[in-house]
């Protein structure tokens, strides 16, 4: 299997809230693969994602398409390794201003949105709508890897399924890889090609149907 993203003995240098920070992570994500990451709150999942996206300093090696991270500039790396935060942030009032090229109408309607939304103010949207738009905003870069931090946390069941379907369709058409932080075991069963869990500061691959893990919320 040819990996798109490979990280080795990798960790964020930012200090999290957890007692045992996630450290020395070794993980490879292949073309067209959706990998989920689960674990209790504060175990360092978000920090790991931020470090992979090169938003925080990190230690260890990270490679994309066989090339070391140093061979990309920071912005080049982040365009290819798209990070979508749990809570989306917007820097101007109008939704459309955040998209260099407007997203395709099909993609909008796949997420239950209409093109009108682009002319609206961000403040008028629900958290769920913002979250879906933040995903589209990131997909506009055609990333090779998408890092999703609980992307469906504020969505209802129907929208959750729509978003899962859109990500899957994007994977199929671009053969990109996805690392998805997910809190919901049934969602993990639905979407995961491989599933990982954080145990005592280390990643452990689990059977995606394994029910041992207890929801922390």
């Amino acid at each position, binding site marked *: 299997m040819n990996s798109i993203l490979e990280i080795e003995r990798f960790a964020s240098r930012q200090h999290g809230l957890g007692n045992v920070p996630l450290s020395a992570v070794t993980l490879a994500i292949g073309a067209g693969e959706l990998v989920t990451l689960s674990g209790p709150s504060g175990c360092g999942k978000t920090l790991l994602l931020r470090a992979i996206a*090169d938003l925080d300093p990190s230690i260890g090696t990270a490679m994309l398409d066989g090339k070391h991270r140093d061979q990309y500039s920071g912005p080049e790396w*982040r365009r290819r390794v798209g990070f*979508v*935060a749990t809570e989306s*942030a917007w820097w101007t009032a109008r939704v459309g201003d955040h998209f260099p090229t407007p997203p395709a109408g099909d993609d909008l309607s796949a997420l239950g949105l209409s093109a009108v939304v682009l002319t609206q103010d961000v403040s008028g949207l629900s958290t769920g709508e913002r979250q879906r738009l933040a995903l589209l*905003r990131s997909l506009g870069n055609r990333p090779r890897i998408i890092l999703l931090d609980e992307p469906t946390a504020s969505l209802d069941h129907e929208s959750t399924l729509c978003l899962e379907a859109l990500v899957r369709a994007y994977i199929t058409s671009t053969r990109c890889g996805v690392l998805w932080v997910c809190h919901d075991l049934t969602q993990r069963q639905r979407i995961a090609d491989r599933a990982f869990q954080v145990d005592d500061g280390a990643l452990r691959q689990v059977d995606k149907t394994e029910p041992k893990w207890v929801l922390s919320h």
Partner: protein
Amino acid sequence: MGVVPLSYVDLVLAATLVLLLAGISFALSLGITRDLLIGALRATVQLLLVGLVLKVLFAHASVLWISVMALGMVAVATREVYARQQRPLAGSWGIGVSAGPLFVSSFSLTVLALLIIIGPDPWYLPQYAIPLLGMLLGNAMTAVALGMDRLTTSAVQQRDQIDARLALGHPWQQAMSGLQQDSVRVALVPIINAMAAAGVVSLPGMMTGQILSGTPPMEAVKYQILIMFLIAAATGIAALLAISGAARRLFDERQRLRLDRLQPAP
């Protein structure tokens, strides 16, 4: 016509007015009595000391001593800029990023004004050089303090927005563009207001002083206009340099936002 000399009795008379104000503020328990008295005392001591220093300096107009005094002024201005920020950049960067621009802008414009525009003989004549530098430095100091404080506090407040833009692959300049412009604007508002109000709302201090000491009004006005323009240029240069330097320092070589480079929040 020379200036009417003031006796120390005159000053004591003025001081009783301040004491009166202090008494009233104490009676009304405004909680500023102490600060008011300390402020008045500090101003008196500092001004008397600087009077002595200037007296000596004017008697021995040497480039060396003028430079020492000037560098001392820059050091105090830098400290003041640092103290007025809630979360300044930590370490030597926090000092250098204000000291450098203050030094470059106020020194270069003072020398320019002395050599090319005013032309006293010798060009470093302390009666011209020191007040000129003081006015440029004082205004540049306020501008840099305001601009830097705005830059760092809004970077902290808007870290999520900045991170979102960085995550989309925007270069740091783009992720910070709104903030940087905003900070420069904030820095330049006082001088723009001062120019707009000059002569109508307020008679600028330097012009007032010159008129009191017998300078014909039109001469005083010309000097005031010159000083205003020099101040505008000095604050503009200092603010642009300091804010772009500080903004650059908020990002590392991978263009990551590094708020850990600011002093920790109190």
